């Protein structure tokens, strides 16, 4: 099995692991970490496909690689935005719960 196929299959597993964490972890920060694992799985798969596209003396197809750099930066921006939302959620409600029902004495004040 070639190196790029090893990592392509690994990437598929990473997407699955991230998806599992995204569903079962109740804390939003843990969901964010799981979502990032899932995202990096997609990146690694894309990177393995770029390596398969080696041609014209280049060790890998530079177009998907350049898009990967863009993707990593945008993923960071989205993560920063999510962390900010989360910190504000906890500051204003004192809870990190994402469930919709609230304790009875809280209803009406929020």
């Amino acid at each position, binding site marked *: *099995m070639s190196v790029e196929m090893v990592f*392509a299959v690994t990437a598929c597993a990473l*997407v699955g692991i991230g998806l599992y964490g995204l569903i079962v972890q109740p804390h939003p*920060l*843990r969901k964010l*970490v799981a979502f990032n694992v899932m995202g990096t799985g997609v990146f690694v798969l894309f990177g393995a496909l770029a390596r398969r596209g080696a041609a014209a003396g280049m060790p*890998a197809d530079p177009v998907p*690689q350049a898009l990967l750099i863009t993707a990593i930066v945008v993923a960071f921006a989205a993560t920063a*935005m999510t962390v900010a939302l989360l*910190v504000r959620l906890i500051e204003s409600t004192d809870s990190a719960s994402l469930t919709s029902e609230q304790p009875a004495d809280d209803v009406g004040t929020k």
Partner: protein
Amino acid sequence: MTPVVSLVVALLLLALAVWSVVVRDAFLAVAGFVAYGLLLSLVWVRLFGLDVALTEAAIGGGLTGALLLGAVARLRGTESKAWAERSGIVLRTVAKALALGVTAVLVLCVLALPEPAPTLAPQVAANMDATGVGNPITGVLLAFRSLDTMLEAIVLVIALIGIWSLSPEGVWGGRPGLRHHADPDGVLAYLARLLPPIGIVVGLYVFWAGADHPGGKFQGATILAAMWLLVQMAGLADAPRTDSRWLRAGVVAGPLLFIVVGLLGLWTAGAFLGYPPQWAKPMIIAIEVGLLPTLVLVLALLLNGVPARSGR
């Protein structure tokens, strides 16, 4: 020998991914994720993506790690309550089945990939001379797919505006986060005095080398932003007020310059973001140099977070 190394890296990567998803303690999960990000850069090296490896180490491992570690520290105390809400055995079994199913379908797709693989490398190689730069990744980012890079710079600014809009009432335009205090004679303050001069040189080198070698503005900007954040964390300088004019001008300058160069292309080369042949390299350098300060500011400010104190 080579496949064995890749196999070990892949297994370690999977183990760290499982760890950061299932371990109970959020801090341990984030610590695992930081190690995972650094290991990922090794994967990029093995996949011959040195530019991607540098970006992953700087942004994926470094900045995202720092961001998540900061978040864990502020979210302590909400963990045990959330843990009590964790999914029951039925949902966990269903989630496992779903995750396995998705992985299986993806693996089947990977095994069914066409041979030979489609590639744009020959087109890039044929047109590299027209751009005047030697690193094909830089060529793609700033010539062939420069629209993507422009939109990316704009996305960063929009994310920053989004974070600033979350500021509580009364502190709009204030300074983000808490003021850091560290022992002025401690190791952190010492490093914050020692490292920035070196870091600035390294950051600018990585930025400048990006034209012909692995590196570029994102990697360089991350190193420069990290130096600024280090000085802030050691308490030697405060985070900037988000309503300061120079700051806001700096944040929009890069994308604005990019758009101006794009419009110039409309006039000189007949297409938005087109470069007249003999002017390609100077225009690419102009965009890179214009974008660097914006990226340093935005990356550091994204990490600084929501304005939280008026700080007058």
